[in-house]
């Protein structure tokens, strides 16, 4: 579809653009005593020709001019198209004069048909103009598109980050934790204080690290351990934690708080559903020039995995996409009563944010 067709206003502007060209032709061909005929003949004809000029768009699309294809490659095709258009313009002129004659408007357009080569030349010239116009149009559309693409991808990253941040501050986690603090205040004041400090540290982490920055796996693990320590106050001996990373893996950088929603899922949708509780196992290692992180938890055999966890997984996937493009692997599966999430990202990946 021709881009001008998609918008009525643009279309009207484009056709109106032919008005001055028509005026030039009226002045060029008209003479004393025949201004009326020239106006009636050339003005509508150029407007009509405007539509023919629009076909240049398709020729320009078929033979683009850019770094790869030089102008000489498009020249023969464009010349042929222009010659054809010239022929057409003679035809259109002939048809239009016949219509004018039949309308009995007291004009004599026939005189212009006596100069078919002139009409032909004007047609070819105008088509050349249309070609130039369309190359400019395509170039401007393309630069607009690439600009909006860059903007869109930036927006996507921002949005994913914001959503991730919002998801981090799960209000139910906060309320449950505050309830624990409230309970412990009288029974175990020291524990209540400890819980307050853990909560404060965790909240500070999520607020500080919410942006698009990257932190080392070691730092991320520290955040996770604070989160899990808070959940351990609530769940007691039901929750145990295993958090292991190789020296190299711990030094690698990942998007901040990438793993936190996954660990929260492991607790809320995994351990919390089991009477006997279980271990959240977090592992990080480097293999085949990739950083591999896995998070595993036992599940309750009687309960299908709840829907709530899907949102968290999607957010993590979006963040990975935003940071690593297509160069990441993310999979979640359940087998033999264990739910496991695996992440694989390239080592020392270039930062798209930079």
């Amino acid at each position: 579809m021709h881009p001008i067709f998609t918008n009525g206003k643009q279309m009207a502007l484009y056709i109106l653009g032919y008005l001055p060209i028509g005026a030039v032709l009226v002045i060029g061909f008209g003479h004393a005593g025949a201004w009326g005929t020239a106006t009636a003949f050339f003005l509508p004809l150029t407007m009509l020709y405007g539509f023919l000029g629009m076909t240049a768009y398709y020729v320009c699309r078929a033979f683009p001019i850019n770094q790869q294809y030089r102008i000489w490659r498009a020249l023969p095709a464009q010349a042929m198209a222009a010659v054809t258009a010239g022929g057409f313009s003679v035809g259109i002129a002939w048809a239009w004069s016949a219509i004018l004659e039949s309308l009995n408007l007291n004009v004599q357009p026939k005189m212009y048909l006596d100069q078919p080569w002139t009409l032909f030349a004007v047609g070819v010239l105008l088509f050349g103009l249309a070609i130039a116009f369309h190359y400019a149009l395509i170039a401007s559309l393309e630069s607009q598109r690439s600009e909006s693409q860059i903007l869109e991808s930036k927006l996507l990253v921002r949005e994913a980050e914001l959503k991730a941040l919002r998801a981090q501050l799960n209000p139910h986690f906060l309320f449950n934790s505050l309830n624990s603090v409230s309970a412990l205040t009288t029974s175990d004041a020291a524990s209540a204080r400890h819980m307050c400090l853990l909560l404060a540290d965790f909240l500070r982490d999520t607020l500080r690290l919410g942006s698009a920055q990257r932190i080392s796996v070691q730092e991320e693990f520290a955040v996770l351990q604070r989160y899990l320590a808070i959940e351990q106050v609530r769940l007691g001996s039901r929750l145990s934690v295993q958090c292991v990373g190789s020296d190299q893996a711990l030094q690698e950088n990942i998007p901040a708080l990438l793993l936190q929603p996954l660990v929260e899922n492991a607790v809320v949708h995994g351990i919390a559903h089991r009477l006997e509780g279980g271990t959240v196992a977090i592992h990080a290692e480097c293999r085949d020039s990739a950083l591999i992180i896995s998070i595993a938890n036992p599940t309750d055999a009687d309960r299908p995995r709840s829907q709530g966890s899907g949102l968290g997984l999607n957010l993590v996937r979006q963040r990975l996409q935003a940071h690593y493009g297509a160069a990441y692997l993310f999979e979640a599966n359940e087998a033999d009563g264990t739910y496991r999430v695996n992440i694989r990202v390239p080592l020392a990946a270039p930062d798209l944010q930079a």
Partner: protein
Amino acid sequence: MSETDPLSVIVVDDESPARGLVREYLANHADMRLVAECANGFEAVKAANAHKPDLIILDVQMPKLDGFEVLELLGAETRSVIFTTAHDSYALRAFNVHAVDYLLKPFSAERFAEALALARTRLRKSEPVPARELLETRRDGAALDRLLIRDRSNVHVIPIDQVDFVESQDDYVSIRAAQKSYLKEQAISDLEQQLPKTFVRIHRRFLLNISRLAKIELSEKESRIAILHDKTQLPISRSGYAKLRAVLDG
């Protein structure tokens, strides 16, 4: 119950600090006696069976059985219940099952005392909560993903996809799953409405999980028989066959 008898209370919460808080708040109310603390739904059903408490203070999100499922299992035995949860989204459901009150964690001693006052009023009037309503309002229209069956103080949890078929037996349904049969007090038409679309009422007395169907055989004079993968044979009624066709061809 005389005015001076203490009210018996059980508290159900999977978090130890949360139970401790309720214990502490209850100590200020001389007319309340805490008879059991339960860390999950199974313990709650057992304790309710043993103590017949006047009031249950019940968390919603717990392992295996959530608060609403505990209430469903207890049915008419529940005299009054107060929910405690960090989620405000369950409030509507809580009032649908005639909860006395709904406490949002964390809650104050004053707010807790208000809830107890409401419970006292409810209990003095001693209107039992109709068990039917408990059963019928238990879900927000979503299909069940598991069946809960109470056998005295034991609770069986059966994932829906393990159920082969359900047979109606008077006021009960017999549920066949993993080579065992379980009895549940429920009408088959009630259960039919709660089950996912994979269950088809092939007969007045039978609901079949269609993934168990091996073949359909024609027996004498137009009546049909469903043969399951484990060779079990179930009758198919004429209208049952039409429903089955609609699902299988659908």
